[in-house]
């Protein structure tokens, strides 16, 4: 078993990276690997509550993050500095996460076998 980390760095809409990252995560979960997700930079917006995409005509995929524990993907990490810079706290997020400092995040990344960044 390898340690796979998915690093999400982009806002949920505006580009397709967040959605297509989520698609890889759901596939990786079926491979019986040790999967974790990281949210940094604008990627922290992917987890914010109250996303409403009606007016841009794009599917709201934020609910999928809540379904991840059904796929045994339970390791979600958010960088504290990224949240602070955007005025967000854990209460603004739709799922339970572990908040790490960037130094702690770097240490966690160093432990991984495969890092895929989106």
């Amino acid at each position, binding site marked *: 078993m390898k340690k*796979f980390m998915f690093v999400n760095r982009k806002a949920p809409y505006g580009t397709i990276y967040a959605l297509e990252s989520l698609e*890889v995560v759901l596939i990786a979960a079926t491979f019986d690997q040790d999967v974790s997700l990281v949210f940094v930079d604008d990627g922290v917006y992917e987890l914010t509550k109250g996303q409403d995409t009606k007016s841009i005509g794009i599917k709201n995929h934020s609910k999928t993050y809540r379904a991840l524990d059904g796929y045994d993907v339970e390791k979600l990490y958010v960088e504290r500095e990224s949240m602070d810079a955007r005025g967000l706290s854990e209460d603004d997020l739709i799922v339970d996460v572990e908040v790490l400092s960037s130094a702690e995040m770097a240490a966690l990344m160093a432990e991984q076998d495969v*890092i895929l960044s989106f």
Partner: protein
Amino acid sequence: MKFGILVSEGPYTHQASDTAYQFAKAAIAKGHEIQRVFFYHDGVYNATRLTEPPQDDRHIVNRWSALNAGHKVDLVVCVAAALRRGIKDEVLAPGFRISGLGQLVDSGIKADRMVTFGD
């Protein structure tokens, strides 16, 4: 060493696919193996044989095909990303194949190092 490569940007607009190709070529020249190149997001546009750049420019698609012909590098295009963008079997350049995202995860498992080229 066995490398897996992920290309996540389209050709010409973005340097990612050029750099990925140069990396793959250099790695092979040093005796390493490129276990697979996986094309995702707009990276799937690297696989269309309809590409016709001006004559004085590099032909990014044919370069990938040559890498497959010369070194048997497995060139895999993500099916979900491809269908979204109109890339199907009938427009694939030689050496490319369309398959699922599982091939990316499989590459991560089998390769010693996974290298991503994109934004």
